């Protein structure tokens, strides 16, 4: 489970000590040959392979994910995700309502990152309409996106810490998340289901004092991120639970369609904000953090670094913010040409895309969502194979799924 090279001397000694204690105390697992003697009938405990239901109500599944595991002792032979418990037919609902009425439905997909969902939906319809977004709206959209990325990563940090027994980071992470939700509440009145973007721009302008307070928060953020890192980055327990758990190579990531921090944790510096820039990301200065090992620890580092970059992006946008229009020239009744379009953005979880088919009426003929969580969850059986059940909890955390988005 652990790589010798990446452990410090003290950690190696500790590992040796535990290994010795396990052997001396007779706690090593008997080998396969020694278990079943032909003379006595096999009992329940002799069975080498058993099926175990994990979820859908297990707290570490972050919602209603059910996994059917085949285990040999603690070791996972295979895992089969069973999803759909939260399926609400969002794509069907899009077809029955006008374009602007679709935006609130997107809030309920990835409910810890509603702003990015709104953004992807609006971007798709705007691309179909060919609308130009005013500069101020672009900047505020980027600010909202990055705030949402911060809050989503903070939820991830807190909850996956709890999954692995680190309860303290949760309180620190949710302290800052609370402040971010306050910013959202002040901007649009909602904290989770934001509905904070409109086709062609934004619903509201910023409230007085918002920018100054946000600047203060963003300036303070790097020191807060240092606090999380102090708790986790060099934490011996955290490292032993995450280093070399769920390793996946860059080629496999692409093969499985994994995007977002998982792909970047495996060494591919691919980010839609840089690769296919939307809004004003092409003029902003930020780094795409990458790591080479592709394990759970590296994905943790990538997400923490992304939070630092988000703070940088927000500060740059706040510096560039100027007075102006917040909505482009959009007709009152939105009737896009009978065409089809795909647009995607970098959500906190990966590539979030919408594929919209219009038939010229005021409702989408077909609106399909390409949810990053759904596609990323596909790789869980591959990641979990051969690991222990307790590592599975770390792996569900590291993929960063939101079941509202998986099931839609």
């Amino acid at each position, binding site marked *: 489970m652990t790589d010798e090279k990446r452990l410090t001397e003290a950690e190696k000694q500790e590992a040796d000590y535990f290994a010795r204690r396990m052997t001396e105390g007779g706690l090593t697992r008997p080998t396969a040959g020694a278990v079943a003697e032909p003379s006595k009938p096999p009992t329940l405990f002799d069975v080498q392979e058993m099926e175990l239901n994990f979820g859908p109500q297990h707290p570490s599944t972050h919602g209603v994910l059910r996994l059917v595991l085949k285990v040999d002792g603690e070791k996972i032979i295979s895992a089969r995700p069973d*999803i*759909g418990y939260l*399926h609400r*037919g969002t*794509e*069907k*609902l899009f077809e*029955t309502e006008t374009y602007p009425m679709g935006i609130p439905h997107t809030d309920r997909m990835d409910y810890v990152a509603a702003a990015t969902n709104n953004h992807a939906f609006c971007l798709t319809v705007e*691309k*179909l309409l*060919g*609308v*130009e977004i005013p500069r101020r709206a672009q900047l505020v959209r980027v600010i909202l996106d990055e705030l949402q990325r911060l809050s989503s990563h903070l939820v991830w940090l807190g909850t996956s810490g709890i999954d692995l027994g680190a309860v303290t980071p949760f309180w620190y992470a949710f302290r800052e998340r609370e402040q971010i939700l306050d910013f959202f509440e002040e901007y649009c009145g909602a904290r989770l289901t934001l509905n904070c973007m409109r086709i062609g721009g934004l619903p509201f302008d910023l409230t007085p004092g918002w920018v100054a307070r946000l600047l203060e928060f963003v300036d303070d953020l790097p020191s807060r991120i240092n606090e999380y890192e102090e708790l986790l980055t060099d934490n011996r327990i955290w490292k032993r639970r995450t280093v070399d758990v769920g390793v996946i190579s*860059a*080629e496999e990531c*692409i*093969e*499985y*369609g994994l995007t977002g921090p998982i792909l970047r944790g495996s*060494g*591919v*510096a*691919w980010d839609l904000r*840089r*690769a*296919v*820039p939307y809004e004003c990301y*092409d003029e902003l200065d930020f780094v795409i953090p*990458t790591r*080479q090992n592709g394990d759970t620890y590296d994905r943790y580092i990538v997400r923490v670094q992304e939070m630092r970059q988000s703070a940088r992006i927000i500060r740059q946008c706040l510096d560039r913010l100027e007075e102006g229009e917040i909505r482009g020239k959009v007709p009152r009744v939105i009737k896009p*040409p009978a*065409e*089809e*379009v*795909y647009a*995607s953005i970098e959500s906190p979880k990966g*590539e979030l*895309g919408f*594929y919209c*088919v219009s038939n010229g009426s005021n409702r989408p*003929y*077909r609106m*399909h969502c*390409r949810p990053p969580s*759904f*596609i990323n*969850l*596909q790789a869980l059986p591959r990641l979990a194979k051969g690991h222990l059940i307790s590592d599975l909890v770390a792996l569900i955390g590291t993929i960063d799924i939101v079941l509202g988005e998986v*099931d*839609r």
Partner: protein
Amino acid sequence: MADETTPPPSPEASAPPAAEAKKEAPKKVEAADASAHPWVESIRAAVPEAVLSAKEFVRQITVTVAREKIRDVARHLKDREDFRYCVDVTAVDWKQRKPRFEVVYHFYSFSKNDRIRIKCGVDEGEEVPSIATLYLAANWPERETYDMFGIRFAGHPDLQRILTWEGFHGHPLRKDFPVEGIDTGAAIYPEEWPEGGGPSPNDPNRKVVS
């Protein structure tokens, strides 16, 4: 490895043309014929009689191919044209058209930093060759398409319902499936309801559970 997959850090390849296209015609954007596009030519040369039509809209290439050839086209795109990342597989139900469904694939190339959309028509009862063994990413999206539209993918390793439960009747994203939902009794007591859905939407005694 990292160098190979990292897209060239030159935004001039993608950003300015999009802006140009917008400035040219902010109101009227129309699809153009794209049969002369190099990717389309390449597919045509590699898989004869595959390309039926090709169009370009807001710099997005859409190629309609023959249903039987979709696997060959996907293999060609993956191996020769470097479209290694299968973004998505979905379908559209054109109720009045013949063939009724359109299966839509999106592929992305890291070296080209661009997407291509491949479509193929499929009628009810027909099967589409599965690309799930070619692109592992297409596994669940194909299952979802089967679940939502009832389009069967030939050669898929595990073609089961994914979002609705086993034993559910009907395919929710078909245009003739009621938005209010069907009586879930159809799934729980299938012997009471005919195959292929709950009671008819015109039935006054229909119980709606949604």
